[in-house]
């Protein structure tokens, strides 16, 4: 059978199911809808099952409904109210910006069809194509396995189960009611209620092992009262334990200035800054990364902590370097 025949049959099926007053039984569909003229009931069944599945995959709401009072017989229909896109009437600048965003995020596979629907809704199909071609200039990496599955689960309020591998513990199975998804610093997180722990937790998507399975159906838990935001995945900021006096060479002073309080004071061609210290270990990492271009002058403990870590590192690498040079 040709592609055109199959397309015609699918379109005719959509029209028939949409326009019927009462749900149509399979036998009625076989008799009435053009393209199903099949003498063999099994062949018809296979065709119809496949068509139904394909339409549902596109998002056509093919419903099954009882047609007698006892529910012994079922029929099929499409509720026009569930088929029709409600008006959104996006403005041309909103459509153009969305087209850029879809392109930038590489979500065109699903996004371009979706965008086309909104363009037609606004009476502006292909608006960006007519305005000068593919929008460019941005690339945002948002890909992550499980992202779409979890986003859909959150919207439909479907609980999920997966194996989670925390940073410092053995992998374990978790059952979670998704409250939201957060992307921060290049990492996707699921925020949701962990059923076993009876509390809200954040899970890194890249630490989910294997598949995400749905547990129970949609609307499986109440709408969470607390909204989800970036703060849900920001580790609690370490309380500021001290301030440090950091001198920076002209080479890196502009980078140190980003963390500093105030503009700093000149010391020759170096600049001396006051910099708040949160976690001293991370602070030392940051200082070491700048090598000889920065010097911490106070407090004394931080200074000796840094010197000690550098001496330890030096001892370590001198072993290797010495071994490599006879």
């Amino acid at each position, binding site marked *: 059978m040709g*592609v*055109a025949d199959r*397309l*015609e049959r699918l*379109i*005719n099926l959509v029209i028939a199911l949409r326009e019927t007053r009462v749900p149509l039984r399979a036998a009625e569909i076989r008799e009435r809808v053009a393209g199903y003229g099949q003498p063999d009931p099994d062949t018809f069944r296979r065709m119809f099952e496949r068509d139904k599945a*394909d339409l549902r995959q*596109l998002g056509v709401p093919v419903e099954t409904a009882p047609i007698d009072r006892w529910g012994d017989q079922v029929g099929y229909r499409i509720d026009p109210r569930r*088929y*029709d896109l409600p008006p*959104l009437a996006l*403005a041309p600048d909103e459509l*153009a910006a969305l087209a*850029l*965003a*879809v392109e*930038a*995020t590489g*979500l065109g596979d699903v*996004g371009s069809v*979706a965008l*086309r*629907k*909104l363009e*037609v809704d606004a009476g502006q*199909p292909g608006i960006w194509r007519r305005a000068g071609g593919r929008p460019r*200039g*941005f*690339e945002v*990496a*948002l890909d992550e396995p499980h992202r779409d599955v979890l*986003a*859909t689960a*959150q*919207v439909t*309020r479907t609980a999920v189960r997966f194996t989670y591998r925390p940073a410092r513990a053995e992998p374990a199975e978790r059952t979670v009611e998704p409250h*939201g*998804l*957060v992307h921060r*610093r*290049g*990492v996707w997180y699921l925020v949701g209620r962990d059923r076993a722990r009876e509390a809200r937790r954040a899970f890194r998507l*890249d630490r989910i092992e294997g598949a995400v399975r749905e547990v129970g159906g949609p*609307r499986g838990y109440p*709408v969470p009262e607390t909204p*989800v935001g*970036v703060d849900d995945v920001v580790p609690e900021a370490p309380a500021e334990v001290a301030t440090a006096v950091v001198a920076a060479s002209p*080479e890196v002073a502009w980078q140190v200035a*980003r963390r500093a309080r105030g503009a700093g004071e000149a010391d020759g061609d170096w600049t001396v800054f006051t910099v708040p210290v949160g976690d001293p270990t991370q602070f*030392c*990492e940051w200082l*070491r990364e700048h*090598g*000889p271009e920065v010097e911490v002058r106070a407090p004394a403990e931080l200074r000796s902590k840094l*010197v000690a*870590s550098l001496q330890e*590192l030096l001892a370590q*690498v*001198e072993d290797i370097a010495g071994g*490599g040079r006879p």
Partner: protein
Amino acid sequence: MTRPTATLRRLERILVMVPWLLDQPGVGIDEVAERFDVDREELLDDLDLLGYCGLPGYGGGDLIETSVFGDQVEVRMAHYFKRPLRLSVREAVTLLLAARALGGVEGLPESAPLTRAAEALERLLGAEAGAGARIAIDLAAAGDEHVPELRDAIHRRRVVRLTYRSGDGRTTTREVEPWTLAAVGGAWYLQGHCRLAGGPRDFRLDRIRELDATGQAADAPPEVIPPPVYRPAHGDPSVVLDLAPAARWVIEWAVVDAVEPARDDRTRVTLRTADLDWAARMVLRLGADAAVVAPAELAVRVGELARATLERYRRS
């Protein structure tokens, strides 16, 4: 989720095209082809097959009427296809993701329209499923204050001048023909043709010390720009490090070739680098949490940096 077949893609296009055609009697066939990104022949086929579709009975008054006269198209008698098919949850979530991602970047002309579009999509999803979609995307990273100015230079195709401190600690001033801005792995990058290096280069925005417009016109960017991640080239040295638990984040952060358990609770990681000076800075940063296993040359460079740094503390 499986991808729709070519047939279903075509059905999808027909279902979204018909509502617009019903609204635009006599529209030019080339305009339709351009707006829906379909070639003329396939479009004529679509119109032809629509003429065989309609209400059961399929008599005179039941079929969709399509006509093509000269260069003009008309579709009638398809009131049931007056509206496009509703967005699926997945489609609405996809558009929302895109809108939230770019809409959260401050200072872009697109920010406000994207925020409005995201709100409309959230209302739609809320009506659909009750809970609405709760997606927060934060692309903030050090140096992102340069994004609006660079976006403008890309848009107007103008060369920019950067004073740039690269990962190996060297500062240079260079002219760059800007192609694209990329947010990858928690950092923003400018990708473009570097006139100093004579080839394509990626620049992390937090390493840009100064940014100036030059007003010079730049060439058009290439069709395909590979993402700004390190791709090992032939001859790039391998680096082997033993990481303490506190430094394990390197495994998730860098492009690593191999990971295996090492002595004590350390992890041995093998990665390649285009530049041993970059690797030396990273080891220096990790301090005693990383031990260099190979190559000896890396140990030498780390040693030099550590000694130079310690020297500063001895003097003062």
